[in-house]
């Protein structure tokens, strides 16, 4: 028993991820935390998407279910769970069952290597980025089998189009990722790394986010990845395969109830996963702004106040909305609920001001803020851009992004290794 306590508390003072330290208890705890965090994030994304899209379209969005529609995702989840489970006639039942689970598996397994902090990852694989790209490409299999097993032509067309699109943009993503990985090798030993924590560490050591490195090469690589990741997750403006006016919801037409919610969960988790890759590779992962130039205890203190201030800001917004609620007795419960929610946010803010919590939550907070920025961009794209036609989509993937990716790769390699290249051309010294 004492060994067990020792095993559990012994990890807390180490500086490795639980997977690298071999501690299965803490690895399980981290896995459960990631699971819960993802579910909460998907629920929040559902509400945020509807409200933000609505406000972009000069309307209000869901307002009835809770105060300002805050309970709408819960109502949606209840409805999906209680709906009748319809399986089309002559559909292949085994494959119909398995398909949503393949997509969810691919979307969730990716989070094993996502680093929320310097030691806050489930594990730190040597092949972190390769693992993420590979496992997220397994989602294509789930989509293809989902479309085929529905035994109906709309899903089949939607599945084939969707998977062709995902496979095409994976190539562009891979090229952009390789350009970023090449920048990790600009240290003394000349050896780069594929591990996610190593990439952020390289950005810290080179005192520059890879977004700004070799300007404008970092930004072009980031741009290619940002476009490709929107296409990879089948989101607007690349969402022809699942657009309602085109293909009646594409490959998940015949799925209803809980199965459809699995596809929905997988889509949002995949969005968060590819945003995590973009944040880790180009935007400095969990690093706070200016970790090398603005050092010292005071700057650390200033930046560590940000989590609490963010939640205080959100609590202030909530209290402001509470004050603006109509004074009719019908709205009494909603006003009380909104006030309670504001109090909850303020309580979280106060907890985040405690010095012990402040230093530990730092990394997770900065990572989450950057990923949330990407989520907002996703919703913004959906509200702003018209949809690409499918042949235009494939043209952009193969004829625009791929050549730019290749050129970028070559130019980045030449610029990164220019000293060695020049030495080997002029024959001076060893290359």
């Amino acid at each position, binding site marked *: 028993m004492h060994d067990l306590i020792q095993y559990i508390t012994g990890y807390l003072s180490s500086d490795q991820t639980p997977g690298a330290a071999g501690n299965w208890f803490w690895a399980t705890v981290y896995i459960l935390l990631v699971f819960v965090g993802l579910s909460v994030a998907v629920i929040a994304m559902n509400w945020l998407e509807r409200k933000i899209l609505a406000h972009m379209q000069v309307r209000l969005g869901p307002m009835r279910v809770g105060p300002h529609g805050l309970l709408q995702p819960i109502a949606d989840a209840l409805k999906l769970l209680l709906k009748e489970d319809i399986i089309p006639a002559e559909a*292949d039942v085994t*494959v119909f069952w398995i398909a949503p689970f393949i997509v969810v598996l691919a979307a969730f397994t990716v989070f094993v290597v996502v680093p929320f902090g310097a030691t806050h990852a489930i594990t730190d*694989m040597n*092949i972190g980025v390769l693992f993420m790209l590979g496992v997220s490409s397994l989602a*294509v*299999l789930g989509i293809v*089998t989902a479309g085929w097993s529905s035994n109906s032509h709309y899903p089949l067309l939607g599945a084939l189009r969707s*998977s062709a699109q995902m496979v095409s943009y994976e190539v562009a993503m891979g090229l952009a990722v390789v350009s970023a990985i090449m920048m990790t090798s600009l240290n003394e030993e000349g050896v780069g790394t*594929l591990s996610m924590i190593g990439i952020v560490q390289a950005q810290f050591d080179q005192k520059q986010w890879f977004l700004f490195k070799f300007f404008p090469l970092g930004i072009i690589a980031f741009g290619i990845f940002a476009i490709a990741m929107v296409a990879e997750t089948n989101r607007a403006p690349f969402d022809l395969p699942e657009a309602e006016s085109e293909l009646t919801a594409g490959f998940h037409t015949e799925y209803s109830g809980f199965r459809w919610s699995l596809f929905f969960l997988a889509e949002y988790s995949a969005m968060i996963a590819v945003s995590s890759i973009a944040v880790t590779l180009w935007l400095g992962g969990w690093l706070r702004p200016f970790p090398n130039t603005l050092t010292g205890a005071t700057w650390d203190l200033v930046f560590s106040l940000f989590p609490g201030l963010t939640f205080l800001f959100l609590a202030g917004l909530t209290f402001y909305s509470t004050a603006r609620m109509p004074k009719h007795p019908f709205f009494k419960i909603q006003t009380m609920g909104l006030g309670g929610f504001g109090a909850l946010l303020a309580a979280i803010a106060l907890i985040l001001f405690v010095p012990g919590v402040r230093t530990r939550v730092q990394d997770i907070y900065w990572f989450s803020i950057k990923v949330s920025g990407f989520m907002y961009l996703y919703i913004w794209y959906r509200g702003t851009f018209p949809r690409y036609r499918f042949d235009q989509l494939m043209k952009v993937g193969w004829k625009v992004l791929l050549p730019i990716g290749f050129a970028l790769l070559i130019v980045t390699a030449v610029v990164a290794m220019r000293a060695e290249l020049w030495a080997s051309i002029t024959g001076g010294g060893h290359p």
Partner: protein
Amino acid sequence: MNPPVATPFFFYGLSLIMIIGGILVITRKNAVHSALALITTLLAQAALYLMLYAPFVAGVQIILYAGGIMVLFLFVIMLISIERTQKEKQFNKQWIVGIVAALALGALFVAVYTKTSRGLTLFIEGRSNYVENQNVQNVANLLFDRGAGQYMFAFEIASLLLLVAIIGAVVMAKKRI
């Protein structure tokens, strides 16, 4: 150093998944079911590569084999109508001879593996180093290094091979040349 404790559990579990997947591949009537069983086998194989401390090969297997080749197979299976093929006979006329010949080959393999000579077993297990965190760098050294790398030429030939395969596949699958 001691080997990790749960290794036999994972090895036997994964090999059971692979064998069952392999049997399902060769016995199912429906080609899509065979393809899904093959995907399971390939993913279990990637896990076995991780057990053999080869994470890069595992990553390449997941991306290329399970995420690329099997998608290609599934596309082709869906392009080819299979309702007719499901009503035909699935196995050859000479299936018994085929199985007997294959099992004889298997017996030959196992006899070679377990043969001992002069009291020594063939594969002495020297588990002295469990290095994994430099695997990608070591593979890259073998492939690309100027001094120690021996496989640069093979790498270039492999890329040429892929180019030829792409051109060949496109030419053969086009409607009119």
